[in-house]
């Protein structure tokens, strides 16, 4: 087991290079790495390409802070509060390249990335106008034939983000980590990304993990840095630990209307944690 990877939040944030591609854990209002994201936008990171299946809160924080060059997602929603407010603004202004993806295709691309193969065949997708855009505009999907039967399928190019930022329930200092409850694609993201930063509610000794009878969501082999981040998903939900704080989310949306979403996040997420 090579050397420990437990680092400070500031140290881990410095690992993320401007201009790189990034994916994060969770969906809309569940298990987003909000503390890490707040630290990223405080640093003033720029030109990130963001990719995820159904992101929400933390994506919008990055959008609000002007940190993004492109967004690739199957849906970017604040659900009953409407489209993620800052994402919508950037997309409608044309201030960001917006690549609309499809859930099954994001999963296929992450699977290819995780397995170390350059593409993944997928069913579905044919008939949607998204197929034309992905084939011709973005080069991310391509119609292929099954080499055995000739059946038409879609090949999705492997997705290998430069960074995956994954918030988990517990991790040891080596990155052996456990996610409880819904996993979403986080275990694929951990395997598909070139570098993985784990933020964890709890840092535990090996002894807590031993005897654990299930697969680890991440192992030391996959992980580059571990950050202790209690309440590191607030105001999104951390299943088993805390619920989504919809009042805070509404407050964030209100701040967005006034163009103060970045300040809201730094003040309410980052400064409160310190």
């Amino acid at each position, binding site marked *: 087991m090579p050397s420990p990877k437990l680092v400070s939040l500031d140290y881990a944030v410095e690992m993320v290079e401007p201009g790189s591609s990034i994916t994060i854990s969770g*969906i*809309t*209002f*569940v298990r987003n790495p909000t503390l890490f994201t707040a630290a990223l936008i405080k640093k003033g990171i720029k030109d990130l390409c963001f990719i995820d*299946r*159904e992101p929400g809160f933390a994506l919008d924080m990055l959008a609000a802070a002007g940190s993004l060059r492109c967004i690739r*997602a*199957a*849906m*970017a*929603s604040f*659900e*009953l*509060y*409407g*489209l*993620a407010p800052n994402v*919508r603004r950037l*997309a*409608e202004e*044309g201030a960001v390249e*917006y690549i*609309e*993806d*499809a*859930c*099954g*295709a994001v*999963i296929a691309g992450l699977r290819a990335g995780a397995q170390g193969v350059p593409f993944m065949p*997928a*069913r*579905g*997708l*044919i*008939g*949607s*106008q*998204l*197929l034309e*855009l992905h084939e011709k505009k973005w080069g991310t999907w391509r119609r292929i034939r099954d080499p055995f039967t000739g059946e038409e399928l879609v090949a999705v190019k492997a997705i290998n983000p430069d960074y995956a930022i994954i918030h988990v329930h517990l991790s040891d200092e080596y990155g052996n980590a456990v996610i409880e*409850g*819904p*996993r*979403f*694609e986080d275990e*694929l993201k951990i395997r598909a990304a070139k570098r993985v930063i784990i933020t964890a509610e709890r840092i535990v000794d090996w002894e807590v993990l031993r005897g654990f009878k299930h697969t680890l969501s991440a192992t030391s082999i996959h992980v580059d840095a571990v950050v202790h981040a209690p309440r590191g998903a607030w105001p999104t*939900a951390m*299943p088993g630990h805390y*619920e*989504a704080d*919809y009042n805070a*989310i509404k407050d964030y949306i209100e701040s967005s209307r006034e163009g103060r979403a970045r300040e809201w996040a730094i003040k309410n997420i980052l400064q409160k944690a310190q």
Partner: protein
Amino acid sequence: MSSPRPTDNMIKCMADLIDNGDVVYHGLTSPLPVLAMVFARRILKRDFTWASVIEHIEPIVEKVKLKPSTGDPYVEPEPLGILTTIDAFDIAAKGKLTTMFFGAAQVDEEGNINLTVIGDYDKPRVKLPGGAATAYLFPLVPKIILWARHEPRVLVRHVDFITGPGRLRIEKGFKHLLCTNKALIEFTSKGPVLRRLLPGASIDDVLKSASMRIIVPDKVDVLEPVSEEEMKVIEEHDPQGIRYLQKMG
């Protein structure tokens, strides 16, 4: 207790489309599907498998409680276990995920839906939240239940952008249904056919409030309005009336 509104009747109409033996999945921004699943299980006693974007398989239905996000794990507590979306979509790839709900910003006469953009993709008049699983699941799921507001700009002749291809579904012989706050419509190879009126809606109203041309057959069913007892169950799961934020009336 309040009296039922069109939203509540719509929930009942959607619930009735769930059959015994179905494997049902709902996504994000889906308060009506969640309540339809509750209604189908608790009131209609339909025996189906409950799966969702929350990844909680078979939660305790009695404890389901709406929140502003239908991706929130606390909406569907104490599941039997986790069924990941990855796993659910693989089940879909094999045709075993039988039933799925999709909201839509536009639906057209072929049953195509648009969740991507109003206007041109590169110069959007309105950016929509994105199709999520639409493009992937439309060609795979044997029964899709769309839900949308019954308005001319929603029920259109041709969608601005085909996020989910309806025609392909009809060619495959899949069930392709639309619940609005006025009617239940089925997409067929001949076009959209009116199957059921919701309480209070007339055929004339259904036709006039849509840009799409809806076929009216000889026999059109009328949904029995949500009863007091049924309303009690809906309110038990959504005491704050989150369902009305969908603005279906």
